[in-house]
């Protein structure tokens, strides 16, 4: 059941991605509804998969790269539905689903073993710290996708290319606004994730901050998004430059998530 639901999730996200790409490049009418339906189906199986894992493992299935990435994607799709519900910009799915699919595809290459929760993680901080971090990252992922849409539309307007995609993409101002909102939403979550992490670290390892690579890169991410908010709120920045920084911010998120675990030695590596 667990494997089956995961496979179905993968298949549905894949088909959604294909339809999404057709919508971007071929631009036929009426595809956005199909995209939404397919992604809802994929998300249903994904939810089922995570619930099954939760009961099988006895804890939130986020330990190990495979489970963590899968949960990350789940959060991304959840935030996508919220944005879709609020703004109804139908083409957003075409940009988000490919990101979700690539991430879940990557996750499927990692080992999927189930092991009991390491004693060090057995703490009430576990759920809080992790949920905060994932919600923040999901918001940043969507902000990234919206940012890409902004840059595309900006490019069309600057270069005076009125392609079909140009007609389908929404106006710059709304994209800028959503990007800003998502970051203002994600930032406090990231902040609290870092704070709870520090408190937990004090509890578990004996000190609040140990300059672990995960901690350093989280800080880099935090500074990047703090900079965006500073520029937007204090300097009144709008548009392209703020968007570009939000894209850099997400690259930093990805590195914190994957790079640190795969390339660097970190205390946050609980897989082995």
């Amino acid at each position, binding site marked *: 059941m667990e494997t089956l639901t995961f496979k179905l999730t993968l298949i549905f996200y894949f088909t959604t991605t294909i339809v999404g790409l057709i919508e971007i490049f071929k631009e036929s009418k009426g595809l956005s509804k199909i995209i939404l339906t397919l992604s809802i189906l994929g998300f249903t199986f994904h939810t089922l998969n995570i619930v099954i894992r939760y009961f099988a493992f006895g804890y939130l299935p986020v330990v190990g790269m495979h489970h963590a990435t899968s949960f990350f994607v789940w959060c991304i799709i959840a935030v996508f539905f919220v944005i879709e519900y609020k703004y109804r910009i139908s083409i957003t799915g075409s940009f988000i689903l490919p990101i979700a699919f690539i991430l879940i595809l990557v996750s499927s290459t990692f080992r999927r073993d189930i092991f009991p929760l390491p004693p060090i993680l057995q703490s009430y901080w576990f759920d809080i710290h992790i949920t905060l971090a994932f919600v923040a990252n999901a918001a940043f992922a969507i902000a990234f996708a919206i940012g890409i849409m902004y840059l595309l539309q900006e490019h069309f*307007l600057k270069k005076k290319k*009125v392609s079909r995609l140009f007609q389908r993409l929404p106006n710059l*101002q*709304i994209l800028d606004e959503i990007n800003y909102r998502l970051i203002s939403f994600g930032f406090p979550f990231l902040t609290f994730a870092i704070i709870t992490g520090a408190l937990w670290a004090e509890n578990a390892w004996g000190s609040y901050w140990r300059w672990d690579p995960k901690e350093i890169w989280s800080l880099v991410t935090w500074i990047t998004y703090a900079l965006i908010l500073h520029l937007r709120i204090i*300097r009144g920045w709008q548009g*392209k430059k703020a968007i570009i920084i939000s894209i850099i911010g997400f690259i930093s998120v990805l590195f914190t998530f994957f790079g640190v675990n795969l390339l660097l030695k970190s205390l946050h590596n609980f897989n082995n």
Partner: protein
Amino acid sequence: MKIIVLGLNHKTAAVQLREKLAFNNDKLQDAILKIKSLPQIDEVAILSTCNRVELYIYSRNSNNNIVDLIKDFISDFHSIKREEFENSLYCYTDSEAIKHVFKVSSSLDSMIIGEPQILGQMKDAFEFALNKKTTGVILNKLMKKAISTAKRVRTETKISENAVSISFAAVELAKKIFKDLSQKSFMLLGAGEMAELAAKHLVANGVKDVKIANRTYERGCELAKDFNGRAIKFEDFLKELVNTDIVICSTGASHYVLNKTQMQKIMKERKYSPVFLIDISVPRNLDPDINDLDNVYLYNIDDLQKVVDNNILERKKEAEKAEKIIEEEVEKFFKWLSTLDSIPVIISLRQKAEAVKEEELEKFKHKFPHLNKDQLAAIEQLANAITNKLIHSPTVALKEYSEDREVLTEAAKKLFNLNGIEEEY
């Protein structure tokens, strides 16, 4: 049976000829009643616009003389020799005619493809004919279908989307930059026909804060009244730019009135809030390098024209999709049209069956007077079932569209001895 379209349009005839053959309001009633009274013509409607004059005719008898008859009428009515207009006329019959009507209503035959006015004009034309009682079952149905086909084309293709005039293109672009035009501030710098038209469209699309900067302050005040805005001194326009999101510039100056350095300073002051500059003056009044600045979108007249050209091209692509929809609708209409032949036969077949059944039931009741109500009802039910089942398959066969339906209709008349069918339907 024949549906005929006879007419000319902007592609086949020059305006001089079109205006000579036009049926203007005062002539229209006279003309339509006269045509209706011509022999062999059962239904007629006339569409007369500045780009086309078309006659829609239905005749129950397929006689080729009708077209000649109409041509003579036109020649008489407009006092114009046949040779002068004959070559500019097109004439379509039956499915070609239906197709043409649908193409016209869907605006595929228009000067600018996808412009919706023609549908309204066509509705008016048919309504006029309906009021004058010159149309009947066939042309009324044709009009209904022409309207529904046009609607289908508009919703299923993008034929009417995207601006095809420069002033509309400006509004369309503004909507791709800003979320809500009513929250944006607009400045008209200078004046001119096209600039004012674009300004009018912007105001119609919600822009409320309108500023007019004209070299002659009085002229600015006049324009400000038109747009419900306020005039500002021309020298102040740079200062005002800090609080302006959309600018249409057409000053007639022979040099740039705004350069990149000035704009850079303004952008800093407006905290890089996006700004849309439209320069429709020739020679240009806004330094093209301004477009390099972040969050500034500068379009000159050629850029807008390119947008328009591209949109027209898109519409032509969509027109191909529309053709397919029209083909489908023509087929449906043609099928409906040909079922008309068999409808009287079907009706009399039904009547005959009913009559036979009633007669036999009456006889039966006389023979067996002692039967009670329930028993009678059961017998009646049985009789109904048998008659219905028996006439079901011939009815379906007659209704269905097929090559040999004429033969079938005749056969049905003979087989069921259906004489005295009303010819009139």
